[in-house]
Protein backbone atom coordinates (compact mmCIF):
# COMPACT_ATOMS: atom_id res chain seq x y z
CA UNK A 1 0.00 0.00 0.00
CA UNK A 2 1.59 3.22 -1.15
CA UNK A 3 1.86 5.89 1.53
CA UNK A 4 0.61 9.18 0.19
CA UNK A 5 1.67 12.58 1.49
CA UNK A 6 -0.92 15.32 1.80
CA UNK A 7 0.81 17.39 -0.93
CA UNK A 8 0.44 14.47 -3.36
CA UNK A 9 -3.33 14.12 -3.05
CA UNK A 10 -5.23 14.40 -6.33
CA UNK A 11 -7.79 17.15 -6.83
CA UNK A 12 -10.68 14.74 -6.38
CA UNK A 13 -9.13 13.28 -3.20
CA UNK A 14 -8.99 16.85 -1.85
CA UNK A 15 -12.62 17.29 -2.91
CA UNK A 16 -13.51 14.27 -0.73
CA UNK A 17 -11.43 15.59 2.18
CA UNK A 18 -13.18 18.98 1.89
CA UNK A 19 -16.69 17.51 1.75
CA UNK A 20 -15.88 15.67 4.97
CA UNK A 21 -14.94 19.00 6.56
CA UNK A 22 -18.21 20.51 5.26
CA UNK A 23 -20.16 17.70 6.96
CA UNK A 24 -18.21 18.20 10.20
CA UNK A 25 -18.96 21.96 10.07
CA UNK A 26 -22.66 21.23 9.60
CA UNK A 27 -22.65 18.96 12.67
CA UNK A 28 -21.00 21.81 14.60
CA UNK A 29 -23.82 24.09 13.33
CA UNK A 30 -21.20 26.33 11.70
CA UNK A 31 -23.18 26.90 8.53
CA UNK A 32 -20.95 29.57 6.94
CA UNK A 33 -17.95 27.30 7.35
CA UNK A 34 -19.96 24.43 5.87
CA UNK A 35 -20.72 26.61 2.84
CA UNK A 36 -17.02 27.50 2.36
CA UNK A 37 -15.87 23.87 2.48
CA UNK A 38 -18.75 22.70 0.27
CA UNK A 39 -17.98 25.28 -2.39
CA UNK A 40 -14.30 24.32 -2.33
CA UNK A 41 -15.18 20.62 -2.51
CA UNK A 42 -17.29 21.26 -5.63
CA UNK A 43 -14.45 23.26 -7.24
CA UNK A 44 -12.04 20.36 -6.77
CA UNK A 45 -14.52 17.66 -7.86
CA UNK A 46 -13.46 15.59 -10.88
CA UNK A 47 -15.23 13.15 -13.17
CA UNK A 48 -12.64 11.24 -15.16
CA UNK A 49 -11.67 7.92 -16.65
CA UNK A 50 -13.19 5.44 -19.06
CA UNK A 51 -13.70 2.57 -16.61
CA UNK A 52 -16.82 0.44 -17.03
CA UNK A 53 -18.44 -1.71 -14.32
CA UNK A 54 -16.07 -4.71 -14.85
CA UNK A 55 -13.02 -2.42 -14.42
CA UNK A 56 -14.41 -0.96 -11.20
CA UNK A 57 -15.22 -4.48 -10.00
CA UNK A 58 -11.66 -5.60 -10.71
CA UNK A 59 -10.20 -2.72 -8.68
CA UNK A 60 -12.52 -3.56 -5.76
CA UNK A 61 -11.42 -7.22 -5.83
CA UNK A 62 -7.77 -6.12 -5.86
CA UNK A 63 -8.29 -3.66 -3.01
CA UNK A 64 -10.05 -6.30 -0.87
CA UNK A 65 -7.21 -8.77 -1.47
CA UNK A 66 -4.30 -6.34 -1.05
CA UNK A 67 -5.06 -2.92 0.48
CA UNK A 68 -7.34 -3.89 3.35
CA UNK A 69 -5.24 -6.79 4.74
CA UNK A 70 -2.04 -4.72 4.52
CA UNK A 71 -3.42 -1.64 6.26
CA UNK A 72 -5.17 -3.81 8.86
CA UNK A 73 -1.86 -5.50 9.72
CA UNK A 74 -0.24 -2.12 10.28
CA UNK A 75 -3.22 -0.79 12.31
CA UNK A 76 -3.24 -3.95 14.47
CA UNK A 77 0.47 -3.60 15.20
CA UNK A 78 -0.22 -0.04 16.44
CA UNK A 79 -3.55 -0.94 18.16
CA UNK A 80 -5.19 1.95 16.29
CA UNK A 81 -8.83 1.08 16.94
CA UNK A 82 -10.17 4.08 14.99
CA UNK A 83 -8.45 2.99 11.79
CA UNK A 84 -9.46 -0.64 12.46
CA UNK A 85 -13.09 0.51 12.73
CA UNK A 86 -12.83 2.38 9.40
CA UNK A 87 -11.32 -0.74 7.81
CA UNK A 88 -14.14 -2.98 9.11
CA UNK A 89 -16.79 -0.66 7.66
CA UNK A 90 -14.84 0.04 4.44
CA UNK A 91 -14.18 -3.63 3.77
CA UNK A 92 -17.84 -4.59 4.28
CA UNK A 93 -19.08 -1.73 2.10
CA UNK A 94 -16.53 -2.58 -0.62
CA UNK A 95 -17.75 -6.19 -0.59
CA UNK A 96 -21.35 -4.94 -1.01
CA UNK A 97 -20.30 -2.61 -3.87
CA UNK A 98 -18.63 -5.54 -5.61
CA UNK A 99 -21.60 -7.85 -5.10
CA UNK A 100 -24.04 -5.24 -6.45
CA UNK A 101 -21.91 -4.91 -9.61
CA UNK A 102 -21.75 -8.73 -9.90
CA UNK A 103 -25.54 -8.96 -9.67
CA UNK A 104 -26.00 -6.20 -12.25
CA UNK A 105 -23.52 -7.83 -14.64
CA UNK A 106 -25.35 -11.16 -14.38
CA UNK A 107 -28.98 -9.93 -14.36
CA UNK A 108 -28.70 -6.70 -16.31
CA UNK A 109 -31.40 -4.03 -16.15
CA UNK A 110 -33.94 -6.45 -14.61
CA UNK A 111 -31.99 -6.29 -11.32
CA UNK A 112 -33.21 -2.77 -10.60
CA UNK A 113 -36.62 -2.74 -12.30
CA UNK A 114 -39.16 -1.45 -9.80
CA UNK A 115 -36.41 -1.03 -7.21
CA UNK A 116 -34.55 1.85 -5.68
CA UNK A 117 -31.03 1.93 -4.30
CA UNK A 118 -30.75 3.23 -0.73
CA UNK A 119 -27.46 4.49 0.70
CA UNK A 120 -26.36 4.78 4.33
CA UNK A 121 -24.97 8.31 4.67
CA UNK A 122 -22.83 7.20 7.62
CA UNK A 123 -20.84 4.37 6.02
CA UNK A 124 -21.80 4.11 2.31
CA UNK A 125 -23.67 0.77 2.56
CA UNK A 126 -25.92 0.20 -0.48
CA UNK A 127 -29.23 -1.67 -0.60
CA UNK A 128 -31.34 -2.37 -3.69
CA UNK A 129 -35.00 -2.85 -2.79
CA UNK A 130 -38.38 -1.19 -2.36
CA UNK A 131 -38.14 0.08 1.23
CA UNK A 132 -35.58 1.88 3.35
CA UNK A 133 -33.71 -0.56 5.64
CA UNK A 134 -34.68 -0.20 9.32
CA UNK A 135 -31.03 -0.38 10.38
CA UNK A 136 -27.72 -0.31 8.53
CA UNK A 137 -26.25 -3.84 8.73
CA UNK A 138 -22.70 -2.44 8.49
CA UNK A 139 -22.63 0.49 10.95
CA UNK A 140 -26.03 0.11 12.72
CA UNK A 141 -27.16 3.65 11.84
CA UNK A 142 -30.98 4.03 11.95
CA UNK A 143 -33.22 4.31 8.87
CA UNK A 144 -33.20 8.12 9.17
CA UNK A 145 -29.55 8.09 7.99
CA UNK A 146 -30.53 6.46 4.66
CA UNK A 147 -31.12 8.36 1.41
CA UNK A 148 -32.70 7.15 -1.80
CA UNK A 149 -30.38 7.46 -4.81
CA UNK A 150 -31.77 10.04 -7.21
CA UNK A 151 -30.63 9.76 -10.79
CA UNK A 152 -29.23 13.01 -12.23
CA UNK A 153 -31.28 14.41 -15.13
CA UNK A 154 -29.68 13.83 -18.55
Amino acid sequence: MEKVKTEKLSRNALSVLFSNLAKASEKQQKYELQESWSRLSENYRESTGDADFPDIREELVRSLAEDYPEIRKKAQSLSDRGVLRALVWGEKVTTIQKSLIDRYLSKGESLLEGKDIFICEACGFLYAGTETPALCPVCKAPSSRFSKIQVPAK
Partner: protein
Amino acid sequence: MYASRNISLCTKDCLCLFVCPTGATDTENGQIDREKCIDGCRKCVDACPSHAISLVFEEYPEPIPGDADLSGMMLGLLQKKSSLEAAASALAGEKTDPGAVKLAEALRRSFRIVGEDCAREAGFLLPQCDPVRKLKEVLDLTDIGE
Protein backbone atom coordinates in the same frame (compact mmCIF):
# COMPACT_ATOMS: atom_id res chain seq x y z
CA MET B 1 -21.48 25.91 24.88
CA TYR B 2 -25.11 26.65 24.19
CA ALA B 3 -28.11 24.34 23.86
CA SER B 4 -29.60 23.34 20.51
CA ARG B 5 -32.86 21.47 19.90
CA ASN B 6 -33.28 18.92 17.10
CA ILE B 7 -36.94 19.60 16.37
CA SER B 8 -37.45 16.28 14.53
CA LEU B 9 -36.58 14.37 17.73
CA CYS B 10 -38.59 16.62 20.07
CA THR B 11 -41.64 14.83 21.53
CA LYS B 12 -43.13 18.06 23.01
CA ASP B 13 -42.97 16.92 26.63
CA CYS B 14 -41.62 20.39 27.41
CA LEU B 15 -39.42 19.37 30.37
CA CYS B 16 -36.91 21.90 29.01
CA LEU B 17 -39.40 24.66 29.79
CA PHE B 18 -39.72 23.41 33.40
CA VAL B 19 -35.96 23.57 34.06
CA CYS B 20 -34.70 26.50 31.96
CA PRO B 21 -33.82 29.37 34.33
CA THR B 22 -34.03 32.06 31.61
CA GLY B 23 -36.91 31.04 29.33
CA ALA B 24 -34.48 30.47 26.44
CA THR B 25 -36.14 27.16 25.53
CA ASP B 26 -39.62 28.66 25.01
CA THR B 27 -39.70 30.28 21.57
CA GLU B 28 -42.17 30.61 18.71
CA ASN B 29 -39.79 28.99 16.13
CA GLY B 30 -38.80 25.90 18.13
CA GLN B 31 -35.15 26.97 18.32
CA ILE B 32 -33.49 27.75 21.66
CA ASP B 33 -32.77 31.48 22.06
CA ARG B 34 -28.97 31.76 22.08
CA GLU B 35 -29.07 35.24 23.56
CA LYS B 36 -30.82 33.94 26.68
CA CYS B 37 -29.09 30.51 26.90
CA ILE B 38 -26.55 30.28 29.76
CA ASP B 39 -23.11 29.03 28.65
CA GLY B 40 -22.68 25.40 29.77
CA CYS B 41 -25.86 25.28 31.91
CA ARG B 42 -27.17 22.03 30.27
CA LYS B 43 -30.26 21.68 32.53
CA CYS B 44 -32.53 21.27 29.47
CA VAL B 45 -30.13 18.71 27.93
CA ASP B 46 -30.35 16.51 31.03
CA ALA B 47 -34.11 16.99 31.51
CA CYS B 48 -35.20 16.20 27.95
CA PRO B 49 -36.69 12.66 27.87
CA SER B 50 -36.30 12.34 24.08
CA HIS B 51 -32.64 13.42 23.84
CA ALA B 52 -33.62 16.18 21.43
CA ILE B 53 -31.35 18.83 22.99
CA SER B 54 -27.57 18.80 22.88
CA LEU B 55 -24.81 21.30 23.62
CA VAL B 56 -23.04 22.93 20.71
CA PHE B 57 -19.35 23.47 21.44
CA GLU B 58 -17.45 26.56 20.35
CA GLU B 59 -14.02 25.03 20.89
CA TYR B 60 -12.79 21.54 20.12
CA PRO B 61 -9.71 19.73 21.47
CA GLU B 62 -6.88 18.93 19.05
CA PRO B 63 -7.39 15.29 17.93
CA ILE B 64 -4.67 12.87 19.06
CA PRO B 65 -2.34 12.41 16.06
CA GLY B 66 -2.04 8.88 14.67
CA ASP B 67 1.08 7.12 13.36
CA ALA B 68 2.49 8.98 10.32
CA ASP B 69 2.94 5.84 8.19
CA LEU B 70 -0.57 4.59 8.95
CA SER B 71 -2.02 8.03 8.15
CA GLY B 72 -0.11 7.92 4.85
CA MET B 73 -1.69 4.54 4.08
CA MET B 74 -5.16 5.91 4.85
CA LEU B 75 -4.45 8.83 2.50
CA GLY B 76 -3.42 6.23 -0.10
CA LEU B 77 -6.76 4.50 0.40
CA LEU B 78 -8.54 7.88 0.17
CA GLN B 79 -6.73 8.51 -3.14
CA LYS B 80 -8.00 5.16 -4.48
CA LYS B 81 -11.59 5.76 -3.33
CA SER B 82 -11.52 9.20 -4.96
CA SER B 83 -10.29 7.71 -8.28
CA LEU B 84 -13.12 5.19 -8.14
CA GLU B 85 -15.56 8.01 -7.41
CA ALA B 86 -14.33 10.02 -10.42
CA ALA B 87 -14.67 6.89 -12.60
CA ALA B 88 -18.20 6.13 -11.34
CA SER B 89 -19.15 9.76 -11.93
CA ALA B 90 -17.97 9.59 -15.56
CA LEU B 91 -19.79 6.26 -15.95
CA ALA B 92 -23.06 7.73 -14.63
CA GLY B 93 -22.73 10.43 -17.30
CA GLU B 94 -22.05 7.98 -20.13
CA LYS B 95 -24.58 5.23 -19.42
CA THR B 96 -28.09 5.48 -20.81
CA ASP B 97 -29.88 2.42 -19.35
CA PRO B 98 -31.72 3.62 -16.21
CA GLY B 99 -30.45 0.77 -14.00
CA ALA B 100 -26.85 1.35 -15.08
CA VAL B 101 -27.11 5.09 -14.41
CA LYS B 102 -28.63 4.44 -10.98
CA LEU B 103 -25.96 1.88 -10.08
CA ALA B 104 -23.11 4.17 -11.20
CA GLU B 105 -24.60 7.08 -9.22
CA ALA B 106 -25.01 4.85 -6.12
CA LEU B 107 -21.38 3.70 -6.39
CA ARG B 108 -20.20 7.30 -6.83
CA ARG B 109 -21.94 8.36 -3.62
CA SER B 110 -20.74 5.27 -1.74
CA PHE B 111 -17.07 5.73 -2.79
CA ARG B 112 -17.21 9.32 -1.52
CA ILE B 113 -18.59 8.35 1.88
CA VAL B 114 -15.95 5.63 2.34
CA GLY B 115 -13.28 8.12 1.17
CA GLU B 116 -14.44 10.72 3.68
CA ASP B 117 -14.02 8.13 6.43
CA CYS B 118 -10.44 7.48 5.24
CA ALA B 119 -9.76 11.25 5.41
CA ARG B 120 -11.06 11.38 9.00
CA GLU B 121 -8.88 8.47 10.10
CA ALA B 122 -5.87 9.99 8.32
CA GLY B 123 -6.16 12.94 10.73
CA PHE B 124 -8.55 15.30 8.92
CA LEU B 125 -11.39 14.85 11.40
CA LEU B 126 -12.23 18.46 12.23
CA PRO B 127 -12.04 21.80 10.42
CA GLN B 128 -10.26 23.02 13.59
CA CYS B 129 -7.17 20.78 13.75
CA ASP B 130 -3.46 21.11 12.89
CA PRO B 131 -3.44 18.86 9.77
CA VAL B 132 -6.23 21.01 8.25
CA ARG B 133 -4.42 24.26 9.22
CA LYS B 134 -1.26 23.00 7.47
CA LEU B 135 -3.19 21.96 4.38
CA LYS B 136 -4.86 25.38 4.21
CA GLU B 137 -1.41 27.02 4.20
CA VAL B 138 -0.07 24.73 1.48
CA LEU B 139 -3.10 25.37 -0.76
CA ASP B 140 -3.35 29.07 0.12
CA LEU B 141 -6.83 28.66 1.61
CA THR B 142 -6.22 30.65 4.78
CA ASP B 143 -9.28 32.83 4.06
CA ILE B 144 -11.40 29.89 5.24
CA GLY B 145 -12.04 30.39 8.94
CA GLU B 146 -12.59 27.93 11.76
